[in-house]
């Protein structure tokens, strides 16, 4: 009459539904956002540098003589809502963004097969007006970005992400340039050990042929190194800008084939204020 206890244990569904975590190590794959965001009451302090282009040669010490900086503070208000503010030395840009976690990939089952997030940002260029005598409007300084992040962690090593993006610049160079630019981002990471991953990212922008912004697309490679509370991201990119309105629009992108490649790094330090 006695029951097999192990059979009873095996028949019970243990625990609740669990979710995949850490599809990416940091909140950025390289330049662009990943589906990772800070949980409630966690703060990410990020310091990013991009050096000059490698084709600067010995005179520019292969770009290391110059550096462009982006600093940001990004905070998880709840587990699904993150707010961030940042400042970039390139064009003296301020940016603010909001990130919403819409779907989480379930672990072990395919109930929810993907992560889905929305990122919206506003960027404000604060350099002095090129022509102060003109009727300059504050709104001309603004760029808006809307982005969906669709990612799947295929296994513990491989995660891939698609990021359809809309960049809207209030002021463009020529009167027949469009203010909107659509782009599709492809990014991924592959872990080569528990704490090291290689990453890549490409943003294809759907540029009109006759536009004056026929810049190269942003293409980057990187290595993520995680050490406790820090993530170090070392990278090579043809983009100098570290915000969507910059590297997707592309005015500072150079050609990989000409050696217009920037070495750079992102450092992320996470603080927990959860009590």
């Amino acid at each position: 009459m006695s029951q097999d206890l192990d059979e009873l244990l095996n028949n019970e569904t243990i625990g609740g539904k669990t979710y995949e975590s850490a599809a990416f190590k940091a909140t950025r794959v390289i330049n662009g956002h990943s589906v990772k965001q800070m949980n409630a009451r966690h703060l990410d302090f990020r310091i990013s540098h991009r050096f000059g282009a490698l084709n600067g040669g010995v005179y520019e010490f292969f770009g290391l003589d110059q550096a462009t900086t982006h600093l940001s503070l990004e905070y998880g208000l709840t587990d699904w809502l993150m707010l961030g503010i940042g400042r970039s030395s390139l064009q003296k840009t301020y940016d603010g963004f909001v990130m919403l976690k819409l779907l989480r990939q379930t672990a072990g089952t395919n109930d929810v097969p993907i992560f889905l997030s929305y990122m919206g940002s506003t960027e404000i260029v604060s350099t002095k007006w090129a022509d102060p005598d003109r009727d300059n409007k504050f709104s001309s300084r603004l760029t808006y970005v809307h982005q969906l992040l669709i990612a799947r962690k295929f296994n513990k090593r491989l995660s891939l992400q698609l990021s359809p993006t809309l960049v809207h610049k209030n002021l463009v160079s020529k009167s027949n340039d469009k203010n909107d630019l659509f782009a599709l981002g492809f990014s991924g990471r592959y872990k080569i050990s528990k704490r090291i991953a290689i990453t890549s990212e490409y943003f294809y922008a759907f540029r009109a042929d006759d536009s004056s912004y026929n810049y190269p697309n942003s293409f980057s490679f990187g290595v993520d190194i995680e050490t406790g509370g820090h993530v170090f991201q070392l990278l090579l990119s043809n983009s100098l800008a570290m915000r969507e309105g910059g590297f997707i629009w592309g005015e500072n992108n150079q050609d990989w084939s000409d050696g217009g490649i920037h070495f750079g790094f992102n450092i992320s330090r996470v603080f927990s204020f959860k009590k």
Partner: protein
Amino acid sequence: MKPNILILLLVIFSVTSYGQDVYFTKTGTVIFDSSTPLETIHAENNQVTSFLKIADGELNFAGLIKSFKFKNALMEEHFNENYIESAKYPKAVFKGQILNWAAIDLDKEEAQEADLEGELTLHGVSKKITAKATLHPQNGGIQASCAFVVSAEDFEIKIPAVVRDKIAKEVSVSVNVNYEPFNR
């Protein structure tokens, strides 16, 4: 006379097989702590399933590694990804026996000491555990608790040199369950 004995036997039989032969919980709590002066490392899982057989004091536990919750999200991520590898080894399971089961009186509503022995399987490694447990029969159920210490090394969980001072080698584990009669 004879039918009465038969009825009596049936009653006894039905009580033992339907009433109280297995106790269980799906909301058991397991807490572990491997804190050092440098870092507080503390996690709690309160979705642990456990069964206890009344006939002989056999018992088992199972919990999902991912259900261990930390205050620090990054710590939880590293615990799952780097240390215990929950994608590869999703569950922790304990199967054991209360050795002094004959001395436990479930009709007495007071705390009684039990000697627990069994095998803990974690991170793909099984290890024998012995511990003192307390059983407290009350309100038709049994409140049980237990504490023991394991070492990360025994379960082949590697701690890299850079964080070796921050993570205690000895991990204290405490278990708390409220068993209820299991109704099939």
